[in-house]
């Protein structure tokens, strides 16, 4: 449904999107994941026909976004990152304008507007002026305008940002429902959103795609590598050497002191990555045989967050050696 080939977008000297390529089949919900300024919005704007790419080729439903922009626009519902609505118009007149702009035939207009008003839960506020609504409602008006005329492709740029938790759940459910019979691209930096809503995730940073995998693949990959956190009282380099020699262990990294807290004087903590069966038993036995004090050993769940941070940090060149324990991520 959506094909992007070697698309690049420059803003003067700034390279916003750098030679990206991906493909989204019909009916898939894809999550665009990446830090701010990664190039998510730029890519989405190109697909929505807002501006053409500097170079490269992109099609939506087989139509070229540069040469057949008008027909692409008829097919796409777009929700911009900056919630853009006319604050001086009442909800219904705004949607009326949208329906007319999107070529909804005159006799179907009323019905179509009623449909999106209901779908986005705007019944109570449909006659109020948009500028007087709460942020959550304004956001919904923004989503409602994207839904008018049942577009085959929905491009939603951070649709749940700034909503309260209850509304977030509602909007996600709505996106899930919509995704049942159409292609959806949503961008976000909320990772749980990806796992609840998307079939596939594209991780993007610095204008490049770092990973593009289906959520099932990703889960399988996450389960392949397992992690242990070990805290031991003893000589750090000797402990590290021992751990590295254990069978099936891939990497051993020191945990930053600051992350552990003040009571860990004289001890060293590590993150051990390994594959296959649980090796906690073997590790603890080997450590105790050396006469070191084993203070803590626990299995760490490798989460989407870890994976994402690893990828982004690697691509930023800051990832080497630094590892944040999941506990600290949760605390954030």
């Amino acid at each position, binding site marked *: 449904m959506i094909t992007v080939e070697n698309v690049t977008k420059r803003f003067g000297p700034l390279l916003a999107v750098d030679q990206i390529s991906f493909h989204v089949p019909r009916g898939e919900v894809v999550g665009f994941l990446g830090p701010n300024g990664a190039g998510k919005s730029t890519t989405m704007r190109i697909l929505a026909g807002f501006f053409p790419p500097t170079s490269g080729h992109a099609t939506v439903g087989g139509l070229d976004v540069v040469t057949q922009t008008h027909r692409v626009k*008829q097919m796409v519902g*777009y929700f*911009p990152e*900056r919630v853009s609505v006319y604050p001086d118009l009442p909800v219904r007149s705004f949607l009326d304008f949208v329906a007319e702009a999107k070529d909804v035939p005159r006799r179907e207009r009323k019905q179509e507007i009623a449909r999106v008003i209901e779908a986005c839960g705007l019944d109570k506020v449909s006659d109020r002026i948009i500028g007087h609504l709460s942020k959550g409602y304004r956001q919904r008006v923004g989503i409602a305008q994207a839904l008018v005329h049942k577009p085959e492709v929905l491009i939603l740029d951070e649709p749940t940002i700034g909503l309260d938790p209850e509304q977030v759940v509602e909007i996600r459910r709505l996106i899930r429902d919509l995704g049942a019979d159409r292609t959806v691209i949503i961008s976000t930096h909320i990772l749980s959103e990806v796992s609840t809503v998307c079939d596939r995730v594209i991780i993007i940073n610095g204008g490049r795609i770092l990973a593009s995998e289906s959520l099932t693949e990703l889960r399988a990959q996450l389960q392949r590598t397992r992690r242990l956190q070990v805290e031991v009282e003893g000589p750090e380099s000797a402990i590290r050497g021992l751990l590295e020699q254990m069978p099936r262990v891939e990497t051993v990294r020191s945990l930053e002191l600051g992350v552990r807290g003040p009571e860990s004087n004289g001890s060293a903590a590590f993150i051990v990555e390994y594959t296959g069966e649980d090796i906690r038993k073997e590790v603890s036995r080997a450590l105790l045989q050396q006469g070191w004090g084993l203070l803590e050993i626990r299995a760490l769940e490798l989460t989407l967050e870890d994976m994402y941070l690893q990828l982004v940090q690697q691509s930023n060149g800051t990832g080497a050696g630094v590892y944040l324990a999941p506990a600290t991520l949760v605390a954030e």
Partner: protein
Amino acid sequence: MKFMCVFKKELRLYFGSFIAYSLMTAFLILTGYFFYTDMVFFDLFGDFMDITSSLWTYYFLDLRFVTMLILPLLTMRLFAEEKKLGTIELLWTYPLKDPHIILGKFFACCFIFFLMVFLTLAYPLLLSTVHQFDWGPPLAGYVGTLLLGATFIACGMFISSLTENQVVSAMSTYGLLVFFWFLTWNEEAIGTQVIGVVSQFSLFDRFQDFAKGVINSKDIVFFLLMTLFFLYLTLQSLESRKWRGIR
């Protein structure tokens, strides 16, 4: 007729936010005051002269001034506001072509301006109840006013498409219009030959004949061409997003 949706939206915005009402009120108060003073002048000194040169010419030159004062305030928001609010992103991702957007906005402003001018017909109508006169010259003046207004609107819209700040938009429009106005003021400074050329482009001098009750087809063509020229510039300004590095 795709521009109709933008046209209707603009009118809803103008009348929903009191911009239209406040500008129309100001326009009517100012023109009403000018008509009153011009009429007093005509009443005191004008009995021996014809009404065209002693009332209508003054009235339409005043009307021209008020038009210049009011229209930049009407057009300043056209694109500047859309850019500021981010709603331009919607317009540019809906199946609307740039000419639809431009024409919708242009005609919406023209509609409001024509409505204002139409309401001022009350002044000559009132005068006609106490004083018989030929309707030809004032109608020529009104035709000129509408053409001049349309050109001002196109000019203001073009400037609004260059900025996202409404104040900058209005001030720059004033700057450009005043420049057109003062273009031919000082013949000594720029020389008679140059003035012969630039006076052809002075929006304000072109209006003079209309004010005197004369409709020249070349003046009509001039205003229409100027309007088209500014509409074209607006189109180019909008299309520039396709090759310029804007965010």
